[in-house]
């Protein structure tokens, strides 16, 4: 077991003899890039129990508060408050989940992760798309949990299975649209505190809407705002689908009409904010 040469002059290097690493054949395609980036976000969520616990319990807590504390004081016409509340609650929950995505994106910028990704030979658009798709998956799983809690506290949708599924799908799609906005916020803010500050706009957006209380209980000038913002539009459509009756949702028109309007808003948000977010990320 004798070695012939002992390199005594070399300082103790905690490294093995280095085999040269072959460079890759070429840069990765956009799909591989998006999936790789998405895999990181999903793992991060799954392996950070605090995230799971905090997001689930805050979601449940506010649902319980509205259901049992404020709910008794809210006049919602012919339907039970819980049936009024849960569709709206699901729609606004995507905004709160989305604002956490903004924080995550900003954190990556703060900690140099974004610089690392930008310095790699990948499509920058694919990086953003992968991130948003992963957040969308997580957001949709969160919707499942929230909906289950809704059912547990007495929510009983009267719509057909198809209508209920469509209501759920619409919540998820609206979440997808919102995530582009929040990605843009995270990238623009550049640090966690600023991202959290900018995400506060979620509160007026959620509360000045038909999500938690009927809009006609608000003063006239506020009704004008509430009725023409996307949260109300999407909430009305989701409520109309879930309850199987536009009148129960306080709507004059048809379910199809309100769903159409909600989809238009959703598509419009994606059309505006997705290119802006990608542009923001690519900008050197």
């Amino acid at each position, binding site marked *: 077991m004798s070695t012939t040469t002992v390199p005594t002059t070399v300082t103790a290097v*905690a490294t093995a003899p280095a085999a040269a690493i072959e460079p890759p054949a070429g840069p990765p395609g956009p799909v591989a890039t998006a999936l790789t980036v998405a895999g*990181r976000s999903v793992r991060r969520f799954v392996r950070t129990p605090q995230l799971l616990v905090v997001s689930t319990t805050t979601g449940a807590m506010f649902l319980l508060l509205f259901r049992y504390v404020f709910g008794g004081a809210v006049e919602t016409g012919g339907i039970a408050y819980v049936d009024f509340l849960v569709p709206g609650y699901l729609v606004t929950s995507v905004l709160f989940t989305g604002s956490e995505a903004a924080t995550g994106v900003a954190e990556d910028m703060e*900690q140099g992760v974004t610089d690392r990704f930008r310095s790699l030979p990948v499509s920058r658009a694919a990086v953003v798309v992968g991130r948003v798709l992963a957040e969308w998956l997580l957001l949709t799983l969160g919707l499942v949990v929230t909906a289950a809690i809704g059912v547990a506290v007495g929510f009983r949708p009267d719509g057909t299975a198809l209508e209920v599924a469509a209501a759920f799908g619409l919540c998820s799609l609206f979440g997808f649209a919102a995530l582009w906005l929040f990605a843009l916020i995270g990238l623009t803010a550049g640090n966690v505190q600023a991202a959290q500050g900018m995400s506060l706009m979620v509160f007026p957006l959620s509360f000045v809407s038909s999500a938690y209380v009927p809009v006609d209980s608000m003063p006239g000038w506020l009704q004008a705002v509430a009725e023409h913002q996307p949260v109300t539009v999407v909430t009305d459509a989701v409520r109309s689908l879930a309850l199987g009756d536009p009148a129960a949702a306080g709507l004059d028109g048809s379910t199809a009409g309100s769903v159409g309007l909600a989809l238009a808003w959703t598509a419009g948000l994606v059309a505006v904010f997705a290119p802006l977010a990608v542009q923001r990320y690519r900008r050197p």
Partner: protein
Amino acid sequence: MSHDTSAPTIEAVGLRKRFGEVEALAGLDLVAEPGRVLAVLGPNGAGKTTFVRTLATLVRPDAGELRVAGVDALRHPERVRRAIGLAGQYAAVEQAMTGRENLRMVARLFGHDRRRARAVADAVIERLGLAEAGDRLVRTYSGGMRRRLDLGASLVGAPRLLLLDEPTTGLDPRSRNELWDAIRALVATGTDVLLTTQYLDEADQLAHRIVIVDHGRVIADGTPGELKSLAGRDVVEVRARRADDLPALAAALAPLGAGEPRTDTATSRVAVPVETGRAAVAAAVRVLDDIDVEVDDIGLRRPTLDEVFLTLTGRPAEAADEPAETDTRGEQDELVASR
């Protein structure tokens, strides 16, 4: 993809970048030959980080030309990204993934297929001495281990040029030494390295060539030895037994010097630049005989990079948090030991 391997690794001509009022790069010129470690040294705000970010295609300069690994970085940034690896001032690794998973992820993003990404990640983690911790979540790593992993992430794409932006900032001395070893091992495998640092001894330890940057411009350029001789003279250094004596000591030594004596209270030393080398030491001994100061040590040495920096800029490098015990001051020519 083929890079011209004889071309300079970096060719920067007249790079300018302004952020609002601040001119981060003010006409920076630099050519880096392959096969060498280049240290960019300068205080906070000198433009080092902006320069690295420009090389990494994260910042687009307002004016100037830049070729990295023979590629025009302004016209083809995507081709530059295939040739570089970047490790920034932060450990940009995912805490909720293991060391291996982090490296595999970045390897995939460099373009390795799944199988190769696995092999490359294993090789790099081994090379960095993290094999044992490789399957643990990064959130259990120490700061030094995270930095090493971050260095590894910049390597999995087998970059021709490695960009290290203040790689050891904030690390304790032991972690710093480990990272230095890792960087030295890399250099031995033929990777070109550009590193920025505020630490003069770091540049001295790692680099073949040092470029000193101040106010967005290169103000000096050479080997560590050349830069030390830029300060032009030797230094007589005297250590007082009691810190109270330092002012008296400085006053007594001042007439010997070709420049102002410099007092370092942390180490109880007074250093004075001299023209005449050994004769100056003899003179210093005679002067000290005449004053009532207890002295531990008198020595003649070459100027440190710290002093070079002071000479060049008229102000000290902002590396005051550097413990003086990490003693890398030039050739300490101990003529006279304690009296």
